[in-house]
């Protein structure tokens, strides 16, 4: 045997498996060596526009959409396919004392019933794995699934849900994010604190900035929970075949992440899972993680038949992620001329019952909260907290639209109080080429002032003001 190689012992195998990465040595000889990235960047220089801008482009898939030939998941069906429905808790915070599925299982046409106990690893999540596929034993929001049914028709599955008896012991719920931050509030994920991620951005000396300011403005802004309402509901089909291989047709936007998550929840090697990302009828961030897929997979395993699950519109609102409501406290110090000298921000994000993409949203909201303005003294603190509500997650902008609403509203308030034109106060404070952001990033190709002027010119700001 070659002295450089040896056969691994059994207990070393697992470690070796985790260390294996896309190694050049592992590639087949037929695969060409990896080309280095092109040295010449394909992006145009700053302030240069590509020729594509201003051109009208048509989508390559638009014709099939228009012909009604595009196949979304709900348009697919397989021989012997069953329909799955999930029973929702309907209670914000509780402990499940007992689930009786016998009446449902006895129904003709019901092929399998699944509860949280049967799931190999009953948790998932893109950041923290804090969300159960089916609640067991703690229900943390009303949209939590408690049991899943696979039946020959959707109607039988619905009737079976009504026959599943769940006994709950209600637990105290916390619904207000600010109250949830208090030490004595009920813990959503006991014994852990309800604050599950924080971020602080500090620049300059905030006290000095306020001391130098002529006027200080304080205001609280808040936004509400928003659902993506993509026209196509969350849908998936799972087929666990007799060889132990699992195929999932899913509307998920991040199929590789979903594959890793599925491998974890099902304790199945990733090589046995194939996820087919079909055409998606609208995502907007709402379909970025798995939801019902592990339950469908296990129902398929139990029945040996493909299982389709499509959320109802109601479930879309209660059991899928939403946009974070944020309570935003802004304190801004300005000179009499309207120059912002200091800005202190405190954001409280209502994270709902599970983390999902909250940590990502928190970061982006916090970094962008001072706005596109040159401010020397900034302190932004952001917290995301658990509450017994529908979980919040990714949605277009990842927290940026909420803070934009707050800082731009306050800019208008300041302009009004100081008697300055709202456009002028923005031009006075906005980033320039080479300005540094609150996190210290030096910004290039900054055209915010030009854009503002051009926009004001186009829609006729002067005559209106």
């Amino acid at each position, binding site marked *: 045997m070659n002295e450089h190689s040896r056969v691994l012992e059994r207990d070393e195998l697992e470690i070796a498996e985790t260390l294996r990465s896309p190694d050049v040595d592992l590639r087949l000889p037929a695969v060409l060596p990896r080309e280095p990235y092109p040295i010449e960047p394909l992006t145009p220089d700053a302030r240069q526009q590509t020729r594509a801008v201003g051109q009208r482009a*048509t989508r390559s898939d638009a014709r099939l959409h228009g012909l009604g030939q595009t196949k979304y998941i709900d348009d697919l069906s397989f021989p012997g396919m069953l329909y799955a429905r999930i029973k929702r808790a309907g209670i914000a915070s509780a402990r499940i004392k007992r689930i009786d599925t016998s009446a449902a299982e006895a129904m003709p046409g019901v092929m399998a019933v699944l509860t949280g106990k049967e799931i190999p690893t009953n948790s998932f999540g893109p950041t923290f794995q804090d969300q159960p596929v089916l609640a067991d034993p703690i229900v943390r929001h009303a949209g939590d699934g408690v049991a899943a049914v696979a039946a020959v028709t959707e*109607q039988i599955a619905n009737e079976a849900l009504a026959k599943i008896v769940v006994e709950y012991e209600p637990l105290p719920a916390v619904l207000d994010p600010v109250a949830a931050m208090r030490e004595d509030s009920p813990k959503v994920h006991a014994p852990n604190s309800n604050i599950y991620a924080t971020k602080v951005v500090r620049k300059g000396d905030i006290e000095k900035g306020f001391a130098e300011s002529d006027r200080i403005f304080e205001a609280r802004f808040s936004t509400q929970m928003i659902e993506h309402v993509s026209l196509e509901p969350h849908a998936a089909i799972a087929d666990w075949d007799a060889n132990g291989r699992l195929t999932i047709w899913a509307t998920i936007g991040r199929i590789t992440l979903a594959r890793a998550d599925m491998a974890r929840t099902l304790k199945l090697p990733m090589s046995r899972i194939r996820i087919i990302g079909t055409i998606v009828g609208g995502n907007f961030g709402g379909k970025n993680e798995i939801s019902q897929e592990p339950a469908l997979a296990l129902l398929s395993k139990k029945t040996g038949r493909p299982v389709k699950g499509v959320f109802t519109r109601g479930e879309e609102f209660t059991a899928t992620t939403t946009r974070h409501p944020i309570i935003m406290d802004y304190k801004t110090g300005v000179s009499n001329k309207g120059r912002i000298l200091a800005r202190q921000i405190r954001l409280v994000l209502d994270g709902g019952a599970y983390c999902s993409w909250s940590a990502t949203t928190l970061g982006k909201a916090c970094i962008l909260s001072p706005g596109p303005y040159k401010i020397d003294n900034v302190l932004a603190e952001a917290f995301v907290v658990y509450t017994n509500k529908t979980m919040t997650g990714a949605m277009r902008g990842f927290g940026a639209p909420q803070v934009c609403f707050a800082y731009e509203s306050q800019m208008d308030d300041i302009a009004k109080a100081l008697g300055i034109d709202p456009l002028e106060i923005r031009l006075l404070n906005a980033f320039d080429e080479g300005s540094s952001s609150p996190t210290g990033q030096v910004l290039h190709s900054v055209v915010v002032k030009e854009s503002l002027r051009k926009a004001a010119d186009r829609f006729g700001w002067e005559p209106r003001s």
Partner: protein
Amino acid sequence: MIVNGQVRGASVPPETTLLQLLRDNFNLTGAKLGCDVGDCGACTVIVDGQAVNSCLMLAGQAEGRQILTIEGLASRERLHPIQTAFENSGALQCGFCGPGVLLSAKALLDENLNPSTQEIRDALSGNLCRCTGYTKMIEAVQDAARLLREESRTQLTHARTEATAP
């Protein structure tokens, strides 16, 4: 009933909706299930010339009537001008609301070949879209109306030439 010009029939339970009949029995999956309560319009089909939410109509109610679904809009030879216009205007992004919007537009243009913007808005008011927005759709319907007007004019000219030919 007559679906897309063909006589079709099926025996289904009385609670079956027209949408379920079309999708599950006739495999016409162009009409989509979006909300199941008649809010979103993704299930729009044309019944006797009128755009209806097929999730709110029972299959039995459609007996003996003329149904047009998105699959019946184009012929084998060519796209319907509404389809061409929607494709060219970029009015279909994810496309889930598309079949319903196109059929609402078709029902409008069958009645009125020169609709005002407000009339188009009214006709599409029962169809929700979350990706594209409605500006491009309205443009597309106007384009389609123009195409259809030109077509009917050429047809008229043809008819006249044929009539006057010796």
